[in-house]
Structure formats: C-alpha cells, structure tokens
C-alpha cells in the first residue's frame, strides 16, 4: 500500500529534456487553446459570469484589483512556507530516525498512513474552533498535510540499504553518523525529493482549502469572495496564479532532483 503512494516518480518522466521542436509545439498548443477559447466564447456570446474569456482574465492582472490579489497571495505563501517548513522537517527527521529502528517503524507506519489518507481539510473547522481564524489553524493544516507525505516517501528512501556500500564505508572505519551522511542519506535522496515535492503540492492545496473555510484572508478566501459575487475573471486569475505556483513547485523539485539525485536516472 505504501508502495503505490510512494512511487510517483513517473510524474517526472514527461518533463525535462524537451527540445526546440517540443517547446514550439507546447507554445502552439497554448496559443491554440487560448486563442480558440477566446474566439469560441466571443462567438457564442458566453456571459463573463459563466466562463470569462482569456482576455478578460488577462486584463485582471493589469487591473486595480491586482494589488489586493497579490496581498492575499502573500498570506497564502506565508501559510504554505511556515506549515511546510514545520511539516517537512518533522517528516524528514522522523523518516531518518524511525527507519533505523525496524520495530518502531512497523508500529508507527500505520498511523502515518492514517495521516496520509485523512483529508486534512476535513480537520480545518475543528482547528479553527481551537485556534481561531488566524494563521495558526492553516499552518497546522499545511504541516499535517505535507509532513506525512514527506515522511512516508523519505522513509522508503532511507529503507533502501545496500549492505555492500555500508560495508565499504565500514571498512574505512566509518562511524554510524558517517554511514548515514555518506551512504544512507545520498541513497535516499531521490525518494526524499519526491516526498518533498508531493508534500509541497499537498501543502498548497491544503492552504487554499483551509482559506476557503473561513478567516477572510488568503487567496482561497478571495476565490470564495469572487465566486459568490460572480467576478469570474478575478476568480480565474486566482486559479491561474495557484496553477503557476504548483508548476513552479514541481519545476523547483525537478531541478533539485536533477542536481542532487541525477545519478539515478
């Protein structure tokens, strides 16, 4: 079960290594979708509150609403970074430690799986009840969503032991700590990075979802506001910002993976 959760490495297979031809084709698809969408929506005179045209969405970025949107985006990023920093650190440390103790690992893993599979968004109302409408419940939710994802993937990495490589280090008199830093950690790195990436994306989803449950600030709360007042261009502009954020997270970890774990591919 943990295997299916922890092996999404295939995610990366479609990205990277695109040549000029592919890049041109990707841009052509974008032009076709945006241009075609614009033409179709105008031709059928679809009202903006049903589906806004790409040009109307684009216009939001130059509008007077943009500073507000960016301000709220800033709140979202604060929650994401704070919650992720806490969740990912705990997840990483826990993974590194418990994989050294098979008994502890076997006892703890079912609970981690429980955390992985529980939608943390469902806990947000409870967290708000306990911690009020500020940053705290959101940061906790982000940490709870990203931490277990990081942990379960990183643990898969740390469990990969190559006894020959450990014996090699031991034959030079390596200490337990040196075996960890020189052998176990680099070996775990590919899975650690996958875990960090999935954790960050889950964290973002949870941050936005938590903002939609109340509090009145953050990009998620903007989404609620815009949709309830039928300001669809602004609504879609926010969605676009979130999508780009997600892709940026993905691209960052893809780059990091190439840099730190490129030996595996």
């Amino acid at each position, binding site marked *: 079960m943990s295997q299916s959760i922890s092996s999404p490495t295939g995610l990366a297979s479609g990205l990277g290594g695109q040549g000029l031809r592919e890049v041109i084709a990707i841009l052509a698809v974008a032009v076709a979708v945006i241009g075609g969408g614009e033409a179709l929506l105008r031709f059928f005179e679809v009202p903006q509150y049903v589906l806004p045209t790409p040009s109307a969405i684009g216009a939001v970025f130059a509008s007077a609403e943009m500073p507000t949107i960016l301000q709220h985006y800033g709140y979202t990023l604060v929650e994401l970074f704070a919650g992720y920093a806490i969740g990912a650190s705990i997840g990483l440390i826990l993974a590194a430690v418990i994989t050294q103790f098979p008994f502890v690992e076997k006892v703890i893993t079912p609970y981690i799986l429980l955390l992985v599979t529980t939608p943390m968004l469902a806990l947000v109302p409870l967290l708000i009840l306990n911690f009020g409408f500020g940053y705290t419940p959101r940061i906790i939710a982000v940490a709870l969503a990203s931490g277990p994802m990081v942990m379960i993937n990183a643990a898969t990495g740390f469990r990969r032991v190559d006894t020959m490589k450990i014996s090699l280090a031991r034959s030079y008199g390596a200490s337990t700590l040196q075996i960890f830093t020189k052998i176990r950690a*680099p070996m775990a790195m590919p899975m650690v990075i996958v875990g960090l990436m999935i954790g960050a994306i889950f964290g973002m989803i949870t941050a936005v979802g938590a903002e939609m449950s109340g509090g009145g600030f953050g990009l998620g709360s903007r989404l609620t506001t815009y949709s309830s007042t039928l300001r669809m261009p602004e609504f879609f502009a926010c969605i676009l910002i979130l999508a780009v954020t997600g892709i940026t997270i993905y691209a960052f970890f893809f780059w990091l993976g190439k840099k730190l774990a490129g030996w595996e591919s």
Partner: protein
Amino acid sequence: MQKTADKALNVRGATKVYGTASGGIHALKDVDLTVRQGEFISIVGPSGCGKTTLLWSIAGLHKLTSGAIALGDEFLTGPHPSIGMMFQEANLLPWRSIRRNIELPFEIRGRQPDLARIDRLLDRVGLGGFGDKMPRELSGGMQQRASIVRALASDPTVLLMDEPFGALDAFTRDEMNKLVEEIWLESRKTVILITHSIAEAVYLADKVYIMSARPGQIARVVDVPFARPRSLDLMETREFFDLVNLIKHDIQHQPKAALAAGGAA
C-alpha cells in the same frame, strides 16, 4: 621502498561460528595463515568454505568467535587504515564522481587526500581524464580499475581482494589480471585474493591456499613456481594447465568426512 619493520599478516586460530542456538556452523575453524610482507596469495575453495568470512574478518568487517589477526606486531581489532579492500564488483557510489569515490576513504578518516598520488594511479590504470566522470558512464572494467585506485590511494600495506573480477567478461578479466600483476610488481603490496577462478588464482599468486568447507579450514597450500612478470601466454602452457587441474581436482575430491564432521559439530 621496503620498510625495515616486517609487516607480515598473521592469522592464528581464526574460528567463526554462526548461529549458536541449535549447534552453530563453523564457517572457520582454527585457521592459521601467514602472509609475508609483499607476498601475493590467493584463496580458493568450494562455496561456503569460509574464504569470504576469513577475508572480511581480516578487513575488520566480521568479528571472529576466537583467534587473532595481527599485522606486524599490531593486533587488528577492527578496520585498519593499513588494510585496503576491493569488493565484489566495483562497489562505487553512483552519486559520486570517480575522483570523489576515490577520496571517500580519506573523507571518512578525516585526512587530506594525496591528490598527486591519485592522479598518478588514475593514469597508471588508464583512467587519466576520467576522474570527473560518474560511475555509470564507465564500463564494468573501468569501474573496477577505479576501485583499484580507491583501494591503493591511501597506500595500504595489505590489499584484500574479494572476488573482484567475477562480474567481468573473460577478456576484460584477463586484462585486469595483467594490470593487477603489473601494479603488484611495482608496489609490492601484501595481497590476499579470493576468487572462484582457479586460473586467476594461479596466474596472480605466489601461493594458492585451498580451503575445505564446514568447517572452513585450510586444506592445502600450493606453491606457484612461475617466474614473474608472467604474461597471459602463460595461461596456455602445459605447466599452467597441470597446476590448475591439480587444484581443481583437490577441491572436487575433498574428503566427504570433513563435510559430515562439520555438519555434526
């Protein structure tokens, strides 16, 4: 070149018993072995005769149940910087460049790598200019050359070779054997080679130790009379064939009594 203090490797009464609950298995029983400084010996024997256990014990990777190992007048109780080890297959860390792989023993021991020596050795094994390549960019033979450099970089007194060329094709293996003899003639390390190839054992060694299984004991020592430097043509001579066949016969016709006694012990 030769140090005045004699650094012979002495193994006395080496005994290793695995599993104590229901009558252990004697992987090694009272093995005595003396390798003079600068001598090249090989150890052959059937699978499970304890030759790897013996080698790993000398490397400090296994603890003997009883008995002692000494290098010169120093008893070995664990991994020792004067002992270099080559493992089955190259056992390079895939996330490190060739050069950084070779520097690993220095890093672990907290010493400055001897860069000039490493460069000289890389050139010597034909890997000059390959230092910055990653292991996967090198062929199996080249990887094993890199692991020779790693083992010799810190100028050990004793070199232990654990079936190092088993995974290589026959031609590459011959080539490696030639290289090992050349390097040995230049450096005069004390070498213990474990191998399944009797031809390799005879080609390289001054003495071939034949071990018997269960209990693992040294059954016979055969002197190899061929002059050095030896050439690969030696392997096609009558004398070479005869010696290889003699050893092969010896291994195949080990007294079955030894097996039975070992099983009962």
